[in-house]
């Protein structure tokens, strides 16, 4: 009996893991297809999309490595700003993405850290590979800490904090989403 319950729980976990991963693959595909306005629909109204700045500090001062909300960041967005950004790319005059970049979002190490109520805390790693024009190449690797919420429309992103593995950004801009 116990074994059966344990197996049941394992199966539930596997299915949940599968659902979350499929959600991320779908999201990545939207971004790589430049379907930004559809992508924004994956976020809840109260979402917080945040990419802090990262600094090289000594191990003793590692608590100061990332800036915090209320301090400077690369992205600090509510749903409204995400919509503005998506609309910007659709204006036809957003030259940073015209010609469009080629991007590939690789999402790995998906780990459901916590499940409480209708929310999941999910950690994942990403590699965003971008090429532009003839020979511009940018790569960003990092970690995401998401809060995913079960809504009537399915999973939605209620929080995304993005931690980039660069301090001095090695690219001229960030005209992609993470």
């Amino acid at each position: 009996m116990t074994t059966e319950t344990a197996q049941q729980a394992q199966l539930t976990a596997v299915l949940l893991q599968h659902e979350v991963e499929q959600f991320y693959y779908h999201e990545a595909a939207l971004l790589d297809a430049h379907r930004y306005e559809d992508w924004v629909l994956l976020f809840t109204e109260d979402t917080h999309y945040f990419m802090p700045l990262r600094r090289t500090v000594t191990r003793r001062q590692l608590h100061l490595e990332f800036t915090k909300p209320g301090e400077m960041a690369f992205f600090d967005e509510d749903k409204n700003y995400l919509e503005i950004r998506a609309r910007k790319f659709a204006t036809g005059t957003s030259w940073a993405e015209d010609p469009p970049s080629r991007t590939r979002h690789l999402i790995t190490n998906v780990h459901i850290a916590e499940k409480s109520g209708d929310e999941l805390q999910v950690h994942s790693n990403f590699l965003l590979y971008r090429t532009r024009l003839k020979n511009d190449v940018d790569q960003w690797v990092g970690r995401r800490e998401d809060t995913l919420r079960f809504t009537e429309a399915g999973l939605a992103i209620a929080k995304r904090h993005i931690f980039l593995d660069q301090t001095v950004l090695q690219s001229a801009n960030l005209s992609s989403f993470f």
Partner: protein
Amino acid sequence: MAETSVVDQLDSLVSLERGEIDRRIFSDQEIFNLEMKHIFGRAWLFLCHESQIPKRGDFFEAPMGTDNVLVVRQKDGGIKAFLNTCSHRGNAVCRAEEGNVRNFMCTYHGWTFGLDGELVGVPGSSLFYKDKLDRSKYPLRKVAQLESYRGFVFATFDETAPPLPEYLGATGRLGLDLLAERGDMEVIPGIQKFTVKTNWKFTVDNVFDYYHPQITHMSAFALGLIPAPPDNYMEGGAKSETGANLEVPFLPTDLHNVVMVGEYGHAISGPDQDALEVSTGVEPFAWRHNDETQARLGRHGSRVAGHPHIFPTTWVTAGGQLSLRVPREPGVTEIWWFSFRDKNASPEENAALLSSHIHFFGPAGLLEQEDGENWAQSTLQTKGLRSREVPQLLKMGLGTSEVVKDDGLAIIDAPINEHAQLWTYHSWREWLRNPTWEELRERTVPHDRF
């Protein structure tokens, strides 16, 4: 026959009369080396703001040309800056960008330096050096002069450089006043740093370029992020690749700009505050309304709503940020954004300000997203054998503007123009000749006409 070196042709590189610049100055390695020596090796350079290092032992690593210096808050509250290179065998004595320390210990052999840069510890000094090493002779190498102007910390490697306020002159001081006057200013934690494959001069030229936003940042206009009067478009202009007329927003401020040019190459350029209010209907920032501020900025200064630039690479924005352009290679420049807030502002005011700092400039900024590629592509084309022979044009308003000299400022009231860029290149060339400070000042006294 060997090609003549660009350096031997300084005179012909910049023509104030024709408004033309030789494109080779943007990719030539020899020119870059000269710039590092004669400009960045001598000029007063912005390092950081005092609020970034409030406590004893706080430090911030800042670039000075090809060097990196540690700016350190001292025990007595003063500030010192020294090269981040060990006096033993050159290792960096600090490998963090910022932080707080009691001392700097070199991780190679352990030489240890105090907050003042003095050598205070040498492992095995009696055993290996028989106590014969005179520690006082091997401190970290200090900058020649360091001074703050209203909290902005500058340093120079040249001990003969004039004092900072004199170097800044009325134009440079006004540029910093336009930031300092906003309140009890501090830097918001987090300096955005990013890398553009461009020559630093393109990034400086752009500071004054009020001709590009309508096109480069057209998408931001389209979204209403930059206020523009509705249904008012520029004639005769841009067509899309399908031949359709692009609706280029026309800003009445384009017809009334204030330019100031100053000794040593400092300049200010951009819209007139009153014209800006009338044309966009946007209320001026509250800080401008204070009588003391108006008095401090003066009759002319209080009209400035554009962009001050302190030669060679420090830009103060209208929104309350400071951007440092850091040359790393002829074709590689880092951009560092220092973002300010008033210590006494309310949480709501701070939140709004932070949001505008994040959403306008910086690599993800809704404006600056578009800038880098223009500069990178412009830099790239200066490498073409034939492309680099095409002169760079700065002809807008050329020869049509009177300069009025008043209050120590040289002021031009004119429609949008390219005078400030030309002035920067003119001064740049004079710096490259490596004159004495006296000669340099004389040669960069603004002309009466532009």
